[in-house]
């Protein structure tokens, strides 16, 4: 073991790197990387991101776990990303295994491989990475000589489509659970030489709250193909696995020395995490349900982290991240303080996700004192009726006021995000999207005529396709057929013919597959294998998406993707993910679904009465607002 590491590094620099695109993806000596002793560290883990380097390196979870694990003396964590096709070809041609960036260690030499599941269309990359790492794809085929393969992240809330391949899932926030898992491996490794016995290890891990081991559960299907029963096979496993959650964000580890990539990555900036969770309760939004409750970090701690980050990274931009950063209690004072601290160094501040109602153009102007970029708003639906259905509590007036103020302040480009195919959507809702876009463009033109804007007015309208997601009020809804989604996009394309407007849309066939896996069950593991064998990978990269291969894979396995994506599921039916407990009760989700169909909105529990989602009592945590000040929404 270990013998391959040095040759791998020299083969790479001498023969391979000059032949592949963006060789910087594979170098592994970026600033702040951690290179621990391979021989002296008892437990070795690879963090595997099933997409390209530049996507994976933008992920905050990776930064957190990389720092957290590497701070422990007995553990090391190294990175591995999906190699781009040219690199994969070079590796396969030479029979070389996929390796980690820090030690150039073959994947199979690690004790533990941890995949993060950020989106469904990265699943084939997981199979491809395991195969390139020379690790058996199926959990059942692995022996004591193989690493343990675990996975976490939002898609782990419906783990079933990956149940064949993943030994153990982490449900919820990984910071605490991961150290417990690594600790268990260290303990077992110290009691006998070599790798722990898999059966012993899995039984041990099953006792850790938040750990789900699919092999310990048996699924029975009913006559119509629906999941009938999910039964625990072993006496010690819980019937439902409950999400792990960090109670106090001020006390949890946060990395202040993250890696600084050489190449440009998707989010190439300092990330300051303001809070976790969002309780606005948009009914399509999985993140809004599974990350509950809202837990803010204190402004003093954020300022201290900012200071350390600026010193250790050297980026020119700082982003205040969370699901809805404008909602942070002390957002205005925090931004002012940060600007005062760093403006002289040429460091700009950005707010990636502004809601229209918590948005003040003053705030945006403050933020963009150093560098000016575009503004993005997400009304999601074109009419008030539909916005009430999805519980997106913003009005057209909010949007028009905000964009008007933005144009008045000199912005010329505005982006608007919508969804098509939402439950109960009608023609009038599509008309509403076009109306809003045109009204916004007209506002821009009027300010242009007044001389406030010199550049061309640019309104970018993007529509994604609604995907019903597990653990949301819309989990029972069917997705529109692909042809219907296409018609809706065509209709909008006609209506948005205006030289000030650019219209972007998502490929409905990709959203269709996303819906299949978002609501899928264990049988889809066969489909994943078949699709990967035919050559599917990087499915979310349009140049690689192979629709025909996917359809052939479903046909081969005798499974109907339409049944998974487009079927309206009755409340009475057992859902494939019912044994995974996010803390939000099914009863609440059903009530929210019924309210949606009745067009009744639900208020945000931070400012109003408890809405009874169940998360606080179930997980024994509370909503934590630490900003001290009033929110923008309240102060309006």
């Amino acid at each position, binding site marked *: 073991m270990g013998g391959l590491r040095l040759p791998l590094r020299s083969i790479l620099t001498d023969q391979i790197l000059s032949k592949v695109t963006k060789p910087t993806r594979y170098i592994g000596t970026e600033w702040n990387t951690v290179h621990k002793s391979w021989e002296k560290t008892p437990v070795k883990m690879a963090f595997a991101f099933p997409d390209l380097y530049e996507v994976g390196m933008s992920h905050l979870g990776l930064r957190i776990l990389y720092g957290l694990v590497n701070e422990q003396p007995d553990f090391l964590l190294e990175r591995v990303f999906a190699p781009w096709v040219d690199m994969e070809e070079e590796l396969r041609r030479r029979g070389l295994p996929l390796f980690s960036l820090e030690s150039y260690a073959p994947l199979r030499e690690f004790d533990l491989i941890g995949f993060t599941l950020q989106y469904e269309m990265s699943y084939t990359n997981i199979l491809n990475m395991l195969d390139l790492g020379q690790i058996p794809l199926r959990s059942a085929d692995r022996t004591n000589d193989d690493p343990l393969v675990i996975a976490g992240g939002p898609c782990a809330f419906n783990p079933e489509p990956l149940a064949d391949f993943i030994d153990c899932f982490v449900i919820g926030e990984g910071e605490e659970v991961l150290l417990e898992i690594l600790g268990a491996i260290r303990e077992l490794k110290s009691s006998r030489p070599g790798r722990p016995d898999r059966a012993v290890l899995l039984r041990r891990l099953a006792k850790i709250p938040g750990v789900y081991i699919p092999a310990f559960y048996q699924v029975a299907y009913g006559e119509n193909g629906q999941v009938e029963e999910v039964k625990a096979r072993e006496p010690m496993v819980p019937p439902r696995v409950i999400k792990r959650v960090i109670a106090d964000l001020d006390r949890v580890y946060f990395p202040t020395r993250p890696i600084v990539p*050489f190449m440009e990555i998707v989010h190439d900036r300092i990330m300051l995490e303001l809070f976790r969770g969002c309780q606005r309760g948009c009914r399509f939004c999985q993140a809004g349900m599974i990350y509950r409750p809202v837990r803010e970090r204190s402004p003093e701690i954020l300022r201290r982290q900012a200071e350390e980050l600026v010193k250790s990274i050297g980026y020119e931009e700082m982003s205040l991240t969370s699901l809805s950063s404008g909602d942070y209690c002390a957002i205005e004072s925090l931004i002012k303080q940060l600007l005062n601290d760093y403006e002289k160094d040429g460091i700009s501040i950005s707010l990636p996700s502004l809601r229209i109602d918590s948005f003040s153009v003053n705030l945006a102007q403050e933020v963009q004192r150093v560098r000016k970029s575009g503004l993005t708003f997400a009304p999601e639906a074109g009419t008030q009726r539909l916005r009430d259905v999805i519980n997106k509590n913003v009005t057209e007036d909010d949007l028009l006021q905000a964009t008007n103020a933005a144009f008045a302040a000199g912005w010329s480009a505005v982006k608007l995000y919508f969804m098509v195919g939402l439950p109960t959507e009608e023609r009038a809702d599509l008309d509403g999207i076009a109306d809003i876009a045109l009204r916004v463009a007209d506002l821009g033109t009027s300010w242009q005529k007044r001389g406030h804007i010199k550049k061309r007015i640019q309104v970018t309208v993007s529509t994604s396709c609604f995907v019903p997601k597990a653990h949301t009020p819309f989990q029972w809804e069917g997705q529109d057929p692909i042809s219907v989604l296409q018609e809706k996009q065509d209709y909008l394309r006609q209506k948005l013919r205006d030289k000030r407007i650019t219209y972007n849309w998502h490929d409905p066939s990709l959203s269709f597959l996303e819906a299949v896996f978002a609501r899928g069950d264990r049988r889809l593991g066969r489909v994943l294998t078949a699709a990967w064998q035919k050559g599917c990978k990087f499915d979310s990269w349009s140049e690689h998406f192979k629709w025909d291969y996917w359809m052939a894979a479903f046909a081969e396995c005798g499974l109907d993707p339409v049944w998974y994506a487009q079927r309206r599921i009755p409340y009475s039916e057992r859902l494939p993910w019912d044994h995974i407990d996010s803390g939000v009760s099914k009863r609440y989700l059903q009530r929210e679904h019924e309210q949606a169909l009745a067009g009744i909105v639900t208020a945000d529990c931070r400012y109003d009465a408890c809405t009874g989602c169940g998360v606080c009592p179930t997980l024994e945590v509370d909503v934590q607002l630490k900003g001290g000040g009033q929110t923008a929404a309240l102060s309006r």
Partner: protein
Amino acid sequence: MDKLPRYRVEYAKGQPVAYISHLDLAKTLERAARRAGLPLALSGGFNPHPKVSFGSVLPVGITGEHEYLDVELLSELPPQELKARWQEKLPPGLELREVRLVPTNAPALMSVIDCARYHVRVALLTSNTPDEIQTAIQKILAQESLVIERDSKKGVRQVDIRPGILALAGRIDNGRLDLDMLLRTGSQGNVRPEEVIQAIKHYAGLSVQTEGWRITRTGLYIGADKLVSPLELTS
């Protein structure tokens, strides 16, 4: 504003950072300078960026032993301190060799550098005697023109690189061909070391491996006849 102190930095770009692009190199140096707390002078406008200018772009995959950049600071620092603080924050493979204060009105590096020295190591596919190598090199130098194919955005062009080859020497070492070449660079015509190998293959018939070349740029100069380095120019 043009009174800000300006420094000339000689640095080396080794492995593994030889594979980062010029743009990424600029960003890497800039971020390291920020980590070091250097008082970087920033350009004005919508997108302020540090005032750093480079001597000559080093192609991806080629290491450089004597590379140059100029940087402006808001306040004066002893060159040794600038070097030490910056170096401490640089990733492996980037080494600052020397830093000097230069006159603020010194001409831009890009406009004065006109030739580059390279060392190239490439495996031979045939076994050649040292004499055969010398003959091949003499043959190249004796040519009045050496036309090679150059890929450009407009497609493949025929280019005569002979005027850009200022010196060429070579020897055999362990089945490998070691070449030293002095080539014209910059706006007055630019020759790449790979193109010289292409010419050697084509005009002198030496058979070399097509991959695993090691190319190092060993120096950048002003004036091919005197070979003054950009650092020497300042003193």
